[in-house]
């Protein structure tokens, strides 16, 4: 097992390398220049001279050939130096330390909501197949898969403010210092973010459970005289959850991406918002650093899930 984990960690290196390369090149391909954006100012009509622009480009290092820029960035990262923000001209690392936990909390909360609601929903749907309970659950699932998360987010904001005249406390409260306020601020964005995944997981749980229901071993369990509750919880559920664990790896990545939209709708000062702002600022170093952080978190989570999968499914033995 240790050998397997070590091997997987080694495989992180080429994956990361590829991710950095794509992020780096993609930013250079899109039109725009960080020096230009900065000099043009917030409103984009400030005046500056050609010499000023050149000086700033030299200062930011964007005048060098691409391979030099890439090499410099990678060399810095090897020393755990993510570099300076090209827009704010401050170390990128500080921003990441501030913003990443916010986005992580949002993502984890969304994932929890998705799973905790989805698995029972899917189970009920399968057990009570073709009854009103199943129809309701399927309706929720279809709605969730069909509605884009920004639309769900806007609806939530709209209904909360308009019908309940309720606004979450403004600003940002730290989870550990003020959990009550923090949860009030995060629960609805997490709901909007996780709704799609919830619906998706519920559908997967339902179909997987229906399949397990038809398996011979479920019949064997019934044939032993076990109560239906034991048949479901002991024999069926563990098998039915295997595909759910598999998909939650992808979900995490999708949720992280979803935070870009949701954090903007709900004005949460997390990494997703920072990413969007940085793209507008053409803040190359910041965007690159965020991509690296996201890539690493997805890789680590997938490794954790693989280990969990191996625990759930004894037929898988990593070596």
């Amino acid at each position, binding site marked *: 097992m240790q050998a397997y984990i070590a091997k997987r960690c080694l495989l992180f290196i080429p994956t990361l390398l590829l991710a950095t390369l794509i992020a780096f090149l993609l930013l250079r391909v899109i039109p725009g220049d960080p020096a230009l954006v900065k000099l043009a100012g917030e409103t984009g009509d400030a005046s500056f001279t050609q010499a000023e622009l050149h000086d700033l480009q030299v200062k930011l290092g964007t005048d060098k050939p691409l391979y030099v820029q890439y090499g410099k960035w990678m060399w810095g990262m090897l020393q755990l130096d993510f570099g300076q923000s090209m827009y704010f001209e401050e170390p990128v690392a500080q921003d990441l330390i501030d913003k990443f936990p916010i986005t992580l909390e949002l993502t984890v909360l969304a994932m929890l909501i998705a799973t905790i609601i989805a698995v029972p929903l899917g189970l009920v749907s399968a057990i009570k197949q073709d009854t009103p309970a199943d129809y309701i659950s399927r309706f929720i699932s279809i709605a969730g898969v069909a509605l884009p998360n920004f639309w769900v987010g806007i609806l939530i904001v709209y209904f909360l403010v308009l019908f309940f005249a309720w606004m979450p406390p403004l600003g940002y409260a730290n989870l550990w210092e003020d959990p009550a306020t923090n949860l009030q601020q995060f629960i609805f964005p997490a709901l909007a973010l996780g709704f799609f995944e919830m619906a998706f997981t519920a559908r997967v749980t339902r179909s997987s459970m229906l399949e397990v229901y*038809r*398996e*011979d*071993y479920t*019949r*064997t*369990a*019934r*044939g*032993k*005289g*076990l*109560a239906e509750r*034991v048949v479901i919880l*002991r*024999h069926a559920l*563990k*098998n039915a959850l295997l595909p759910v664990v598999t998909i939650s790896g992808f979900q995490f990545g999708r949720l992280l991406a979803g935070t870009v939209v949701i954090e903007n709708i709900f004005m949460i000062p997390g990494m997703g918002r920072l990413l969007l702002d940085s793209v507008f600022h053409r803040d190359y170093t910041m965007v690159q650093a965020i991509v690296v952080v996201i890539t690493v978190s997805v890789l680590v989570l997938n490794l954790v899930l693989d280990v969990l999968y191996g625990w*759930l*499914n*004894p*037929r898988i033995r990593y070596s």
Partner: protein
Amino acid sequence: MATLLEVKDLRTHFFTREGVVKAVDGVSYAIEEGETLGLVGESGCGKSVSALSIMRLVPDPPGKTVGGEIIFDGQDLLKLPDSEIRRVRGKQIAMVYQEPMTSLNPVLTIERQLTESLELHLAMSKTEARREAVRRLEQVGIPDPERRLKQYPHQFSGGMLQRVMIAIALSCNPKLIIADEPTTALDVTIQAQILDLMKNLSREYGVSLLIITHNLGVVARYADRVNIMYAGKVIERGTARDIYRHPSHPYTLGLLNSVPRLDLPRTEKLDPIEGQPPDLMHLPAGCAFRERCRFAIARCAQEIPPLRPVSAGHLSACFVAETLLSRAKEHAA
């Protein structure tokens, strides 16, 4: 010998979108205490469904037992409430299934799958159940049972898994074990081992055995009495000897002729039954075997031949049974 289980006019139908499939349509048979009864027929003749109906394990929907009685221990299993039938399953009647590879839960240890019925039906503690599980595994000939208990099904061969299934079936000392094609999925070399094991253990504990198979050889060797099924009905019944020596239904005769025999010259050609089994959704009027039968007479198209005695303890559902019987006796002589 007392009758242990009596199936009376059992009808289990499947209600599908295309129509009603009469998988089991008026089947009756009885199993005596300590007896081994064979239930023989082609795939799709309803033999497995009739066995699953006893345990009430036919998936519903689409399957439903629409008629008949299954008398076990003085009560009709079909009328028992769910909580009562659960006390019969695994405790009084246990099953050994066709596919040991898929009939055991892949994510649970052998120990868990063995001990759960012990804990449930015999109210054993975890340690007691564990000890009993080891004993049962030893009994079915699994070496190193202590270590094997901790393992998962995928770490066993098919034959070993079927031994585990037998251990599970025997674990609560049932009165009847239903073995549904217990060796079909296994290697030929393992088949005899498994059947011998089941036969010996059932004899040792006085358990009745219902063996469902399409293999006449299995029945000849292990069953006391045999029921031959065709298209959801029993069409011939008798002792294994009766069926072999004096088959008195054309279908049984056809089955016997389509099996290679060591006692005939190798140049002898096999004589398979022509045609296909009937569509259980659109059964023809009269005898279901008529279209494939070389002895059919006009009457066969109009009436369904009833199962009736042709000699003591030997029944056949054929209008020309007597002719066949005397022919078979002549042949034997």
